[in-house]
């Protein structure tokens, strides 16, 4: 970690929100100037406020701004950047973008374009894994026709899962439990895949009930040296989207952990991988693991790995992209303790997870006491735009063991207050209170098993009604008061506190 001068002078961050802020922080710690880009909807966004430089991209719609390669390369040239960090999402796994960055003479902070390409096809990735001796989920090694599908499913047995070859984000996926449903599922998956990825080809895999999604972080330098940094348990999912992650996985033991890690490194080596990447595995209830796919970028959930390994993955990405050697080997990696991440989305848990953009009226974020980290992309008063991903922050708790991490996460969640928009904080409280989760005994079906509602003690309901009544009383009084306004109690409070603050001078 001894750095003799920053590896780059100036980096462009081709992203927004909390991940752009995360990269800005890494740059600042390394003495690198951070350059943000922003759409018209993001002029007041945190990643613009915190950056050393910022360049406008215009239209809020992603394809005209954050997904517009030309505009981003123009911004990099205009701000005289030496490298581009893509974050995750947007252009992070766009091989064409990576190639154009390199062809512009800039450094792409990520793997070579060829690696992104190779792993972008889910079936090609399966083939590569299989060639490297890494177990893959039984099923097709390339996309299938309707005829081939019937034969294959007959061989691997129901239930099966149809997936888009170019897939991601749960789109073009169908579980099929019997031969009757196969045709309709094939056509549905195919057309959804076509619409989402402009590629309607699908393939088929064996489907496992109650499976675990466990992924392995790898880090490779440009000289062929690589390590794995333990795994992340990502089985708490809702509609194939991760909700909460932790490391280590309470489900696997050290022997499987090491085998999975070695598989991940072997596969990465085989495809000439560089920089940070993640191998996703499916682990069945017999603890057999199968390669699923590779993510050729930083993961949303990278902080849990940082917490237990002490390695700053974003700084490592930057350093490795500059050509630095890794400088440590597998035997130098000693994960310590346990870490959990809760993804805080602007979504209404009580209302079928409807998106909840809008103005954040009041925001108290946890960040105190031992073992708590909150990677946020918003601030009090910020209006969360309607155009982008609903992730507003990632709350991470570390403990010496899993029980301590859970205790800290619960404590931190109680210190997290957002008003103005709805968030998934209530869902997190439910998960952290679920006996199956607390026991470490859960799989991808956990969310479905959550009791929809918990009740506080009788007394707590009284207090909730008391708080409501005080609010209504103040509203009513504010309305009938002399300086009437439609804003009610909060307005009255503002007047009060203003008067007080003037009086204090």
């Amino acid at each position, binding site marked *: 970690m001894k750095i003799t001068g920053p590896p780059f002078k100036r980096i462009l961050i081709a992203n927004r929100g909390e991940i752009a802020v995360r990269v800005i922080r890494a740059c600042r710690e390394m003495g690198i100037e951070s350059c943000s880009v922003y759409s018209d909807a993001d002029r007041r966004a945190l990643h613009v406020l915190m950056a050393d430089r910022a360049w406008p991209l215009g239209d809020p719609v992603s394809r005209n701004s954050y997904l517009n390669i030309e505009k981003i390369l123009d911004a990099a040239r205009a701000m005289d950047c030496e490298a581009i960090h893509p974050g995750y999402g947007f252009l992070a796994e766009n091989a064409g973008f990576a190639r154009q960055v390199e062809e512009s003479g800039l450094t792409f902070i990520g793997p070579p374009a060829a690696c992104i390409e190779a792993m972008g096809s889910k079936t090609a990735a399966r083939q590569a894994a299989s060639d490297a001796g890494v177990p893959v989920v039984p099923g097709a090694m390339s996309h299938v026709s309707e005829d081939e599908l019937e034969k294959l499913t007959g061989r691997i047995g129901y239930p099966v899962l149809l997936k888009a070859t170019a897939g991601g984000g749960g789109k073009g996926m169908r579980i099929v439990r019997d031969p009757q449903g196969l045709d309709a599922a094939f056509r549905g998956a195919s057309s959804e895949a076509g619409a989402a990825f402009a590629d309607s080809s699908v393939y088929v895999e064996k489907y496992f009930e109650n499976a675990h999604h466990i992924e392995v972080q790898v880090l490779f330098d440009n000289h062929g040296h690589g390590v794995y940094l333990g795994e992340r348990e990502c089985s708490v999912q809702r509609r194939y989207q991760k909700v909460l992650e932790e490391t280590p996985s309470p489900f696997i033991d050290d022997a499987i952990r090491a085998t999975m890690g070695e598989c991940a490194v072997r596969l990465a080596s085989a495809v000439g991988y560089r920089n940070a990447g993640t191998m996703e595995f499916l682990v069945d209830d017999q603890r057999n693991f199968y390669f699923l796919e590779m993510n050729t970028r930083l993961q949303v959930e990278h902080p849990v790995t940082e917490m237990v390994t002490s390695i700053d993955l974003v700084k490592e990405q930057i350093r490795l992209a500059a050509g630095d050697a890794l400088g440590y080997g597998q035997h130098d990696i000693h994960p310590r303790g346990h870490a959990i991440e809760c993804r805080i989305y*602007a979504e*209404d*848990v*009580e*209302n079928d997870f*409807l*998106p*909840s*953009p*809008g103005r954040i*009226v*009041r925001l*108290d974020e946890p960040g105190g006491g031992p073992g708590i980290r909150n990677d946020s992309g918003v601030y009090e008063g910020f209006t969360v735009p*309607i*155009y*982008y*991903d*609903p992730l507003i922050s990632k709350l991470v708790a570390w403990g010496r063991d899993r029980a301590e991490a859970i205790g800290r996460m*619960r404590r931190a*969640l*109680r210190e997290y*207050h957002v*008003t*103005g928009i*709805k968030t998934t*904080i*209530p869902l997190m*409280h439910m998960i952290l*209170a679920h006996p199956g989760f607390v026991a470490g005994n859960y799989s991808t079906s956990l969310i479905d098993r959550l009791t929809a509602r*918990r*009740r*506080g003690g009788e*007394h*707590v*309901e*009284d*207090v*909730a*009604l*008391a*708080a*409501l*009544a*005080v*609010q*209504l*009383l*103040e*509203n*009513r009084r504010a309305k009938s008061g002399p300086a009437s306004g439609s804003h*009610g*109690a*909060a307005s009255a*409070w*503002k007047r009060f506190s203003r008067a007080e603050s003037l009086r204090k001078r």
Partner: protein
Amino acid sequence: MKFDVQYKGRAIRLDITSEDSLYRLEYEGKKIGFRCERIDESCLSIMIGEKSYEAHVHAAPPAYGVQLQDLSYDFEVMEGGTGAAGVRRGGVGPHRITAPMPGKVVSVLRAPGDALKEGDGVVVIEAMKMQNELRTPRAGTLKEIRVAAGETVESGAVVAIIVPAAQAKTDAV
């Protein structure tokens, strides 16, 4: 002062009085005395005896949310008799479909005059990469579409008006 509140389908009448920071709440035959201080725009510090509670209130009339410890409560308040709450529950008059979230209108699926079955989709709104199909909760005739594809709508905006089947017939020429 008295307030009528809906909580999980339960109608509760709150009766609250105060003197300085001392409050008295009566509801459903219970009497609760407590002290309360406003901490900021959304936060109240409530004490019942020595028990201390930090409550965060979000007001988006007629909806009110209270966050307390690890729990969230959602209330609907009937203000002035005919709040939006009344409208949403519907009667026999025209039904308004409102946007449940701010977003962008992706497509309008039906045209004025169309006959609709219960549950038919009318408008698709997108926010934060998620598409949401707004459906009619009752059969009827689509009387009016108030939005166009590409437009941005705020939460609660009326996007369409449906006339119940019976009324539609009498309205029809």
